[in-house]
């Protein structure tokens, strides 16, 4: 192979491997570092407390084994209710998210004002934490799974509304323009282009939302919104760590099963045509 020689005149000069950061980058990094160190104190980080707590952790972990199955029946019932809350809340939330997303997406919204208003509502629903919604609904409709289901509906609209709208905005505009050119109605274009085009993303988001709802419905019970959370809180308060271990194991099996099934379902639905 002939050797390629470059004369000194036409050799390109190499730029340095690393460039010196600008003073603005250095100052920003220093500011971030300072804030982080200050936050460590604010977050109550304490190595001595952690070391001091290790024996307690060991004791609790020891008492957790073997997990107690003496209340297996009521716990399984509570696990089922938790899943039912998550399922019903997610399905209703997903259904309600579709019109919200259509109003919030740039390419389907009837007017910019409607889009901004809908986006603001969705943002509000999303930014208020689910525990705050749960407390609100417990006070409004009383203790029990209904308050939890309402919380999941609201949380799902906040989550799916945003991602469905983004999925619709990402749909290739070509097919919609093609159908617009022959005079089809906006509703037809939404039904045959926007929704099928956004469907893979919408299915993904819905299944993630179900997984999120299952995890969230576990915690909702802690504030009286039904489900397994209440059982867990009672077990911990009564120092029945073995019973708590059984509940945690059941929660793990539920969450794992939902995640596994949802990814299998996602794969199947992605490859189906109409």
């Amino acid at each position: 192979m002939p050797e390629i020689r470059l004369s000194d005149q036409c050799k390109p000069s190499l730029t340095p491997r690393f460039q010196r950061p600008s003073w603005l980058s250095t100052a920003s990094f220093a500011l971030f570092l300072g804030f982080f160190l200050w936050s460590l104190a604010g977050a109550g980080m304490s190595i001595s407390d952690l070391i001091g707590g290790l024996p307690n952790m060991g004791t609790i972990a020891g008492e957790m084994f073997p997990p107690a199955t003496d209340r297996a029946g009521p716990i399984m019932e509570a696990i089922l209710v938790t899943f039912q809350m998550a399922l019903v809340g997610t399905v209703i939330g997903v259904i309600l998210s579709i019109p919200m997303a259509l109003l919030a997406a740039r390419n389907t919204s009837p007017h910019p004002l409607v889009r901004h208003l809908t986006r603001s509502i969705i943002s509000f629903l999303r930014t208020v934490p689910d525990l705050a919604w749960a407390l609100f609904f417990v006070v409004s409709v009383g203790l029990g799974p209904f308050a939890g289901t309402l919380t999941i509906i609201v949380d799902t609209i906040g989550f799916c509304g945003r991602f469905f709208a983004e999925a619709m905005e990402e749909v290739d505009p070509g097919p919609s323009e093609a159908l617009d050119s022959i005079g089809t109605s906006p509703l037809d274009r939404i039904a045959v282009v926007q929704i099928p085009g956004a469907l893979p993303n919408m299915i993904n988001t819905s299944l993630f939302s179900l997984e999120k709802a299952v995890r969230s419905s576990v915690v909702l019970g802690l504030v009286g919104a039904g489900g397994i959370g209440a059982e867990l809180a009672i077990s911990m308060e009564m120092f029945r760590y073995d019973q708590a271990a059984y509940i945690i194991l059941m929660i793990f099996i539920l969450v794992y099963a939902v995640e596994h099934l949802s990814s299998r379902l996602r794969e199947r639905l992605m490859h189906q045509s109409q």
Partner: protein
Amino acid sequence: MTSIASPLLPQTVVSEQSTTSSLQVYGLTKRFHGTTTPVFKNVCFNIYKGQSVALIGANGAGKSTLLRCCVRLIEPDEGNIVLSGEALSSKKGRELKKARNRVGFVFQKHCLVPRLSALTNVLHGNLAHRSGPRNWSQCWARQVDRDRALHYLDQVGLADLWNKRCDQLSGGQSQRVAIARALMQEPSILFADEPTASLDPNSGQVIMELFAKLSKAQNLTLFFVSHHVEHALYYADRIIGLRNSELQLDCASGTENTASLRGFYA
């Protein structure tokens, strides 16, 4: 080459088969926002029913813009359009959409819905005339419409692939489905914007032959944009050309040769 003197008037290159106008364009001008030079100005032509007309011109000459302006997908700044005897310029909203129902459009990119089957995509051509869920998917379409959609798929040679998802079809097959969708609409005039641009030469020729065969068989008016001088010469009755923002060519395709038309791209 037939050069057109300005001011332009509707041209008189008339197809032998008809003297009824399918599309008349008078003094069409379009400027894009922030530019001083118009994309085209004072464009006039008259396409007769059953004619096959090729629109040629260099890149950026405004061919696609002119095609879209003819159905007001892009609003022209000046000029009048008469489509099948109806003035399009004054129409708004629902009336404009109704007028567009008679115009089939095939784009450079096939513009099919990728996740849906070929048959469902063809069925969507029906939405131009009948709105509603019965035409959203072949699953719940009327039997008569399913049969028609399959008939048009058969005409483009893809009846066997009716249930195949469009994202699993080749570029040429997808473009054939787009033609079937346009035919499903039963248009009186078919517009095609560089329908072979994304295809290899052989597939491109197959598509153009299909266009020519089907438009003649159904007495459709065909108005297509092409970069291929050969396609314009072989598949069009008439060629019109845009250059320097003006319509500078309007001739019967038999009167020109490849070399003279290539000069039009210089």
